[in-house]
């Protein structure tokens, strides 16, 4: 047979499924440091160290970024921010919150679907660990269940300085043209 066996009636319009809501919650493990991790049942020190390093690398990428230390401290609390190893395009300093812990998959249940990432504590909700894109993970260390979307690699919250830089090259659409594609 040369055709699709079945075809879920595909809509052309807006997607009706909020898929992350249907997915199974994921087991994740939260630790403040490598020692805490290696003391957890079923977690070995090597994996703990590797994941800590992964989270540290991600920290630079995914942590919320600020162009003033005051703005950063307003969100994360006094002395809870550091200078990020990046600069604005005009050479200014960039600030980010300190990494307060990290999240990884549960080694007992095969944590392959969990993206290892750094965790933060915000000033307005200091007892919970949150991801770089501000999703609540857990209020305690050790293994917890989180919605599947929280276990995914975060996209980075940032500050847009300009929009509208794409689109100018498109020829003006006339009534006789419907598509820019082909």
């Amino acid at each position, binding site marked *: 047979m*040369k055709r699709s066996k079945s075809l879920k009636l*595909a809509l052309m319009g807006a997607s009706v499924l909020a898929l992350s809501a249907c997915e199974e919650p994921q087991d994740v493990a939260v630790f403040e440091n490598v020692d805490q991790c290696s003391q957890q049942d079923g977690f070995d020190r090597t994996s703990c160290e590797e994941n800590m390093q992964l989270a540290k690398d991600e920290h630079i990428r995914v942590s919320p970024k600020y162009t003033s230390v005051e703005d950063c401290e307003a969100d994360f609390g006094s002395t809870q921010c550091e200078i990020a190893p990046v600069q604005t395009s005009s050479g200014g300093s960039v600030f980010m919150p300190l990494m307060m812990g990290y999240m990884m998959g549960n080694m007992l249940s095969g944590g392959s679907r969990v993206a290892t990432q750094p965790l933060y504590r915000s000033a307005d909700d200091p007892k919970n660990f949150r991801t770089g894109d501000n999703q609540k993970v857990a209020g305690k260390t050790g293994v917890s269940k989180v919605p599947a979307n929280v276990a*995914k690699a975060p996209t980075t919250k940032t500050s847009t300085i300009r929009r509208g*830089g794409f689109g100018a090259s498109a020829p003006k659409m006339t009534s006789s043209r419907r598509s820019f594609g082909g």
Partner: protein
Amino acid sequence: MQRISLEQRDDWKTQAESLGFDFHTIDDAPYWDESACYRFSLSQIENDIEDPSEEIENLCFEVVQRAINSEEILTKLAIPADFWDYIRASWLNQEKNLYGRLDFSYDGQGPAKLLEYNADTPTSLYESSAFQWLWLEQAMELDLIPKGCDQYNSIHERLVEAFQTLQRNKDIDGKLHLASCQNSPEDEGTVRYLEECATQAGLETSFLFMEEIGIDANGHFTDLDDMGIRTLFKLYPWEWIMTDDFGKSVPQSGVTFIEPAWKSILSNKGLLPLLWEMFEGHPNLLPAYFSTDPRATQLEGDYVKKPLFSREGSNIEMVRQGEQPLKIAGPYGEEGHIIQALHPLPVFDGNHTVIGSWLVASKPCGMGIREDNSPITKDSSRFLPHVIY
């Protein structure tokens, strides 16, 4: 290959509209046209369309491999030098492609001839993939066509699989953003359909318009929630990205683009002379030269002149001995042209017919047929379903 007149389903317009396929009619002229269908034999599909499509895709890869290392070729293709390294890196890093459509002139006999490759921003996807499939199922149920007909069309299944693979291999990491230009319901519809396929594959998605994309202080692109974009499907030609204001930020943006930048070599009409130069005499290729090439004069008489960046038939000029040249108006051409030997589209009941052969993740998997009253097909050309029996 035959054109067969058919009864239409009474309610097809209502169905189209309930599925969001609302450009089925354009300015009172039909776009989706089920008053006829094309019938093929299985061997016509497999031997004359499917196999040559796979073969041409592989020849195209050889062209890309050669072009990325040749400043002379990249110059001929009118690709800005600022993007040469970026395009080269996109190929060497094996950035994944999702889909494309090869357009053929084919009349049921003899080899299909490649007219061009819509490798970067092909449309008419939903009609081919979903609405044509639905028509087949229902037309058989209503006895409009014999039971047990088949169709060369596993596009939908392959798209969902391709998104699953991209996710599994972390080629799409996190959310997939998808974008098209404002003011084109057809382009937006195509992207919304791809978004649906990605969702069915389990990806988290977000749609926005190209014009809405922002940039942050580090040169990363952002969506309307100020979230960084990591993977962007864009139904927006690479040559426009390269000349847009934000274009210069693309190489350092860290964004994975679908289609990847190396597709800009294949969507360029300059692909056609490059293929001919490397594989001259291949049965599925037509002689073609850059217009600046002295050999272009060999095609004097009957030929087609195409701008490097033309889309939807715009600015194409068809010249036949003893006839007035036929020209389609449009905004393209300053970038240069190619000359291709004329291989007129076959005519069925007065209609000029072109075959669109779909590839998903470089594998041929389906077909869409367009008809026009003129020998040059355009964005307004009618879409007709096909059957195999």
